[in-house]
């Protein structure tokens, strides 16, 4: 239920996948600042966003011809999510939930990071109802 002053709980509904848009990066940076301010954050990952928490992502090398402008390799998004989840252990809490239907469709149910919960659409609406603020980012962002 919405509060008049100062959010204590923010639900973020994210549908954008890995490596294709800026939105996941923005969500991570926003979550960091919310946690710093003592705000609990619930991220509900939907559609392609469930690939963000695939634990089998690895740093990969860039093509040799392009390493001069891109670097030798780059890290993966799940590293940053893991860092934020661990940051949430000692203050405001971050929960990251991947939609069960979406992970099953994509065959990544068994590949989710250990600290990620697989949830239902019911969980989405519980997050929304409990939140002081709700931020929704559609898949084309």
């Amino acid at each position: 239920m919405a509060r008049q002053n100062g959010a204590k709980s923010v639900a973020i509904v994210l549908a954008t996948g890995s490596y294709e848009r800026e939105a996941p990066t923005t969500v991570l940076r926003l979550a960091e600042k919310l946690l710093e301010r003592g705000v609990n954050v619930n991220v509900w990952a939907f559609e392609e966003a469930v690939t963000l928490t695939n634990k089998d992502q690895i740093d990969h090398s860039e093509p040799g011809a392009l390493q001069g402008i891109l670097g030798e390799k780059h890290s993966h998004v799940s590293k940053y999510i893991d860092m934020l989840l661990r940051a949430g252990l000692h203050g405001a809490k971050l929960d990251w939930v991947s939609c069960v239907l979406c992970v099953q469709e994509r065959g990544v149910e068994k590949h989710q990071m250990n600290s990620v919960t697989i949830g239902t659409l019911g969980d989405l609406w519980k997050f929304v109802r409990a939140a002081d603020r709700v931020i929704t980012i559609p898949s084309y962002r």
Partner: protein
Amino acid sequence: MAEKTLVIFEKPIYLCMEPVDPHLFATAFGVVETPVEVNVLLRDSAVTYAVERQDMKGAKVLGVDVQEFDTNPARVVKFMIENGGQVYVVREDAEARGIAPTDLVPGVRLISREETVGLIENHDAVMVW
């Protein structure tokens, strides 16, 4: 056979956890590592890819750089030009965003929106990202 390909960018992608927009570096790979002649047209909001002095180093999560390597789209544009790729920017789209010719990477060619039609006609294939 598509010996000469025009790659068109319309919407830029920044800070997607790749060093740059993956479509952009795939295009650069085509320029430098394949026998296909690859040229680039930046239109709509993607004209920003040719703007010099872009800087992504401020983006961090818990103090860790989102981009570990200091790169940006303009570096890739410059690299493509240095390796024989032609990079065109739609003048009207740049002007609409307050981007002056002096803001652009040297070697980028400004063309009018009308001239893009001829550019498309002069290529065997067109890829739009």
